[in-house]
């Protein structure tokens, strides 16, 4: 009897520790499935935290570089273009400017998004965001990814696994998003995909 109880408890622990709400990826348009060279734009900030958009943008950029999934247009190139064309970062680009940006940078897609929720109160860490991948030529949304997690979600046993920093949480969530894209065969240069 004790054996069965121990086994059941272990299964519960494992399920609790490993189960997670994976990022929800919705493929909207089936046109461009494997954009390779992409532009990452700072996120639109829908929260009270003033630098949340820049914060998530930095972490997404860093994780995309680490994953070697895409060829990223350097931030300086995009910012220089924005300055030249007198556009504000965070504001949507007109289709003409988007095409011009594509021509200048050779990018195939734009990755942007919005930060929906940021909670950083002591041990309560929460983050929710949307990431949009658009075809730079047509402006059409290719796929959308929504993800929402808190630090407690990653606890495995006792305090182990729990995330106490917003940066750590964002990094972990972005990693999950990239893995979900890879699993669905979305995006990425063909060479690296192989």
């Amino acid at each position, binding site marked *: 009897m004790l054996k069965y109880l121990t086994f059941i408890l272990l299964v519960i622990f494992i399920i609790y520790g490993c189960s997670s709400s994976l990022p929800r990826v919705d493929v909207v348009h089936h046109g461009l499935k494997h954009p390779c060279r992409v532009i990452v734009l700072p996120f639109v900030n829908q929260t009270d935290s003033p630098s949340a958009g820049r914060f998530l943008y930095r972490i997404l950029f860093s994780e995309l570089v680490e994953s070697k999934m895409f060829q990223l247009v350097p931030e300086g190139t995009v910012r220089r273009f924005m300055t030249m064309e007198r556009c504000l970062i965070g504001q949507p680009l007109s289709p003409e400017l988007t095409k011009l940006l594509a021509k200048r940078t050779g990018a195939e897609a734009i990755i942007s998004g919005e930060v929906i929720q940021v909670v950083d109160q002591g041990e309560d860490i929460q983050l929710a965001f949307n990431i949009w991948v658009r075809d730079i030529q047509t402006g059409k949304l290719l796929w959308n990814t929504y993800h929402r997690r808190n630090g407690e979600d990653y606890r495995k046993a006792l305090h182990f696994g729990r995330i106490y920093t917003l*940066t750590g949480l964002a990094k972990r969530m972005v990693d999950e998003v990239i893995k979900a894209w890879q699993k669905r065969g979305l995006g990425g240069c063909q060479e690296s995909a192989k």
Partner: protein
Amino acid sequence: MFRWFLVFIILIFSSAMKAGAQIVVFPFEDLTQDVNGVNLSVSQEVAQALEERGFEVIPPDQVLDFLAENRIRWTGWVDRITAIKAARKYNANLILVGTVTEFRRENEPILGLTLRLIRAPDYKVIWSRTKALSSKEEISLFNLKVFDSEKIMAKVVNSLIDQLPEELQQGITQPPEIELADIFLNPRRVQGDHFIECAVRLDVSGPPPEEVFFLWNKYKIRAFKENSLYVAKWKAPRKEGRYPINLLVKWPSLGIKKELFLSSFVVDNSPPKIKLRPIFGKTLSQGIAFSRSITLVPSFERPEPIARWVFEITSEKSHRVVIREERPGRLPESFTWRGIDLGGHFLPNGRYKAKIIVWDLAGNRAEAEKELLLVKGAPPVSVVAKEWSEKIQIDLHVGEHPLPISFWRLELWDKDGNLLGEYEGEGKPKLITIPKRDNLFYSLDVQDTLGNRLYVRYRKLKPIILQASEEKKRAEKKWVDDF
């Protein structure tokens, strides 16, 4: 004077110091302050940690002047122009930018940091990592160890730097330098489809190269190590031309490769076009005539280096080689022949053939010939005088001589030394008729077209008395009748 010398030494020293710089660390962006926040302390900590790992670093406090000079008011990113400017100023290839995403020193310290390494020459983000740590995550046994902000910072920074690409760490700390100690390329000029062998000896500071290639005309030939040499062999192309060879040295484990110009080879399938040009000789239909010596000058239509040559003279009559000389290296400016054989003996007049054979550095053979006519000595002229009852006929008889007479002169004198007549002309001598006179003397001067000269002075003319012989014949006839 001493002051200038001191300035010179300082300049050299400072440039040497700069030559080693590899990473420029820009001040970090600090999102915990606001979107335009700057964090010097964390960036300084990262710079110091990099220095401790053996990297050559331009720390952020030194970069502040550069930012001010270029009116850059942002951190966390760098545009292409700024990256190139900074790289040139600090003689570095890499620029490190970073963002402090979370930072709290007191009350459960916390640090979140993301770094991006940009390669300035091609403006590419080659590496990026993010790391965050809270003291709440670092729990020691019985909670004895206290994780303050310093420890958290050190742990985050070290963790990030540990993740730098291995080849970057090794390559920056020990960049191998190579110098060409010896180059052996044989042959440097080659005929198409013939083999070329190339060997190099390298002086290397640091680890020896893992792979060495010779690059020419889009071909990549792997070199094999034989003792201290890297050797490779390949077939030359058929198409003529000069082909540069580059040396590619690779350290794949360090992610380093170096390419430098080595040498070049020439494919040459065309034999040299050579001519023998005579000087001091006279051009006749039989060849180039000469008496004392002939000088032959070899000349090329298109000058090129020569590997070896042979010069020989053959007698046309006996088909015997009378002169032969063979040497490696370049041709002499001219060949002079005095009509003698190898033993130094004078050769008889006659026709000879001079031949020059050359081989260029690629081994292409070419030859040129010239017909020569050796004419030594004056033209053999004999004076034949016939005397009749009232006249004397003088005939200048020219014997066998390969060259025509260019000039002749005959002077007739009496026994008292009075000049009786002068006769001269160009070309073949004419028949001279003079009134009969006894005791005549003559002087004769004859030259052939080469200047070979016969000069006879004041010799008695002995004419053949033709009348006397006729009378004798008549007397003999009479006797027969009487008999």
